[in-house]
């Protein structure tokens, strides 16, 4: 083996060490969260009211699940593994993109909040138009046509074909 191979070998080890260091902490963070979750779940399970007339009460399965999760989380805490590279690259998201995700989340929240108050057709039209425009679709004529036609079509299909009532809201239909 030449010197070159030796160096690359050492580099490889360093690289591995770096991976493990980063990942150990993420594994541990998730494990800690899951341990807390399983303890909360266990407390709630133990506090379930007993029912006298069955051999296996309603708390048996939840308690077993709680302990199982606790056990698995402890295993995860001590696990040193190399995570798939995909998972790593997935996590490296630029801040601006996170803001965009949060914004879309808020749009959806607003959509749900207004759905029954304002009505399906109006809210959906606004949502499709604003959301598509926000995500970078600038052809506003096509956008407007799609935004207006899709909800009307869906509303018609659902109410007359499937007999599923969608919120009518303020529109007099």
């Amino acid at each position, binding site marked *: 083996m030449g010197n070159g191979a030796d160096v690359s070998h050492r580099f490889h080890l360093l690289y591995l060490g770096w991976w493990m260091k980063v990942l150990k902490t993420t594994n541990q963070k998730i494990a800690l969260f899951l341990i807390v979750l399983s303890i909360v779940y266990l407390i709630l399970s133990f506090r379930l009211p007993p029912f006298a007339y069955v051999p296996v009460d309603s708390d048996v399965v939840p308690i077993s699940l709680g302990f199982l999760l606790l056990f698995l989380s402890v295993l*995860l805490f001590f696990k040193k593994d190399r995570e798939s590279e995909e998972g790593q690259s997935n996590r490296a998201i630029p801040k601006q993109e996170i803001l965009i995700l949060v914004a879309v989340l808020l749009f959806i929240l607003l959509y749900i909040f207004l759905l029954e108050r304002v009505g399906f057709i109006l809210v959906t039209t606004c949502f499709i138009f604003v959301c598509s425009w926000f*995500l970078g679709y600038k052809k506003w004529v096509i956008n407007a046509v799609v935004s207006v036609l899709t909800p009307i079509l869906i509303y018609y299909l*659902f109410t007359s074909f499937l007999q599923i009532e969608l919120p009518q809201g303020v529109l007099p239909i």
Partner: protein
Amino acid sequence: MEALEGLLTGFQIAFSFHGILFVLIGVVVGTLIGMIPGLGPITAIAVMIPVIYGMDPTLALLMMAGVYYGAAYGGAASSILLNAPGVSEAVATTFDGYPMAQQGKAGKALAIAAISSFVGGTVGVILLTFFAPTLAKVAVSFGPPEYFMLMLMGLTAISSLSEGSTIRALISATVGFMFATIGIDAQTGTPRFTFDSPHLTEGIDFLVVALGLFALAEVCSLILNRKERLTDQKNIGSLHLTKKELHEMKGPMGRQSILGFLIGVLPGAGGTIASFLGYLTEKRIAKNSDEFGKGSVKGVAAPETANNGSSTGAFVPLLSLGIPGSGTTAVMLGALIVLGIQPGPMLYQQHPDVFWGVIASMYIGNIFLLILNLPLIPYISKILKIPRPLLISLVIVFCIIGVYGISFNTFDLYLLLGFGVLGYLMRLVSFPAAPFILAFILGGMMEQSLRQSLTISNGSLMIFATRPVALTILILSILSLLFPYFQNRWQKRNRIRQGL
């Protein structure tokens, strides 16, 4: 011969005007949704659930089955044309499908995919015709302990076979099961984890979980990748295949349809494993294996055949045992329960018309798919040209309508959003979603069969050790959990041997 007789009754149902119509609707919708990057069979089935609400159960089942295998067909298009596999089942198709498209032979690749999907699906249905009733007859003798163990094996198998670490997958499954315990306990009437909310007393609807974890989580990925320049094929080229190419496809199609089917029957293993394994085995035994990865005909035929064979194979445990072995069939089971159909040996005995109707419809559906796909693929694949931002908004709207259309309250919509966020976070930290949804859907049934078993045995867990079938399945489940450990050691030893 009983199978043939049954099949004949099945064809009478499937060949009715309504039967043909709904199969056709099912396969078209399935193909369309399956083609959209990121949306696979799970989303396709889930968004169709409000549509089948209140429909005739047999016809609805015919249609849903069509959606299911139609989506398996459709996945190939975005792999070949955009190099953007929609779901993991379609990843192996990109290896040779995209190089072919780059050489201007996209049409050929799509034709190969359609033909091999047809062969995989059809051979799968033929095997299903004989496998499913046999298994159903065996399963009649199964009691709650056997059922509990079968479901447990499904969960351990999907956990050990899913990508990434087994512990992560098991945690996913456990948390999924925990969500299934929310609501009023059926046996004692005790409200569990409902926090006095009237919305939670009946538990969380599986549709909310499925659309959140799969479709909405995928929307997040779509948003992040919305600017990705997709190299689009302007000219698809001819769909015509030469005799030599057809001849080349024969071997892979013959082998992989059977192999794919068998993998599909196994719990936990599904289209992803079948398609990768199909690709790798064909590459290994091919004389011209260096052509693989550069646009080989076999490289497209093998994973597509295997994927469709396995998606049909997955119907065996679903129909004859009533136990799904994958995330997709779990959502399918949820859809069946919405229809009031409880699959399993009882379905085979008491409603043979439904049982055989579905199987018969799958023969017809596969033929439809071939006829539709071959000439129409260039036109259908136009759906891939929908601008990403518009597609994202529409998918979100469809998810919301899907949930609202069966629950009619906004509480479930907030839950849907919550599961979407959860699903995306799970992706970020590499926790697989399939064990979660499988455990969530099986949870109620598992708890019921566990408690029935323990009632039979007066609370003794020995019931699982004294019944031979239950014990065998238990041992198999434990073995399936140890499998990744040995696989790891074996790989490590190999790595050391190779000097890494």
